[in-house]
């Protein structure tokens, strides 16, 4: 009798384990506007920033990629290091996946010059074709942070002079935000890694 129950249990478990749950595609996040018949989804607006080599980077440079975006500043004594640790985790996993790029924006362009960002990238030992570090006009940077769901503003009382959240945002080829994680929470980033795989699948890349 006990044996039969056990056998039944094992069979149920095996069936359960074999079932591949079909995943829904990732949603398009953010506010939608209905314009007549069309729905306009939230998307990343036009931008023009400068990378760690002094080259201009615009949206079109990222049009053929899925990218992860975050906001930081090198003088940040609070959450930035742990977020960078998690960005490094993403970098390490997708180092050889050509469709994925990483984009870190400084919100302190006065201190974070092109040279400083270059040094920062070198300090992380990352390939800047894959992971770029952007600076530019401060207002433009703080504004676009909002489009990336990141609250960022100057605050003399905050550690390092800026207050901001450590979100890591996943953007698709159409500039739509498809997923995000709190970069300060490694478990949240583990979920984001699964979301990245799901988005890659949408573009025909099986991980």
């Amino acid at each position: 009798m006990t044996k039969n129950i056990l056998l039944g249990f094992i069979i149920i478990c095996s069936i359960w384990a074999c079932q591949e749950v079909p995943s829904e595609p990732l949603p398009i996040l953010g506010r939608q506007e209905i314009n007549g018949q069309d729905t306009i989804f939230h998307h990343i607006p036009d931008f023009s920033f400068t990378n760690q080599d002094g080259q201009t980077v615009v949206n079109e440079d990222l049009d053929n990629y899925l990218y992860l975006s975050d906001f930081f500043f090198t003088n940040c004594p609070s959450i930035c290091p742990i977020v960078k640790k998690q960005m490094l985790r993403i970098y390490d996993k997708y180092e050889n996946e050509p469709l994925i790029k990483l984009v870190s924006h400084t919100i302190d362009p006065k201190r974070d010059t092109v040279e400083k960002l270059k040094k920062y990238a070198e300090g992380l030992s990352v390939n800047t074709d894959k992971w770029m570090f952007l600076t530019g006009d401060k207002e433009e940077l703080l504004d676009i942070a909002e489009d990336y769901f990141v609250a960022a503003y100057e605050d003399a009382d905050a550690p390092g002079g800026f207050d901001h959240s450590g979100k890591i945002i996943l953007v698709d080829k159409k500039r739509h935000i498809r997923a995000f994680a709190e970069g300060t929470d490694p478990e949240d980033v583990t979920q984001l890694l699964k979301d990245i795989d799901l988005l890659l699948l949408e573009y025909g890349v099986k991980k």
Partner: protein
Amino acid sequence: MGLKSKVLFILFLLSMAIACQHVTFKEGEILYETHCSHCHMPKGEGVGDIYPALNNLTEDYAFEEIYCIIRNGKNSPDRVVEMVAINGLSDVQLHNIVNYIKSDMNGLQHEFSANASREHLLPCPE
């Protein structure tokens, strides 16, 4: 093996596991979490060369050197990120952090008891 010895063996393993997690410098650990772990990471693993790892120190890394870096900060032109001085810590607290880093994090000998130098701050190069 009898039931009794099995139970004893499991108890032994459990106590070993608990013993291995023991932190000698508890105050140092708490202070580390408050003041250091943001950048040097909770287990001292660091982030690249920017926030250096602290969990791979060797014996020749002098106690005084770590002590003075915490007290005065560290900056040089080739560093991307400046380490700011950690203000407001007593000498005993500084000792406890260094002892925690050396002893609990790296398994090295801790060199000073806080009481031994309670009288005066160690000299640090300014």
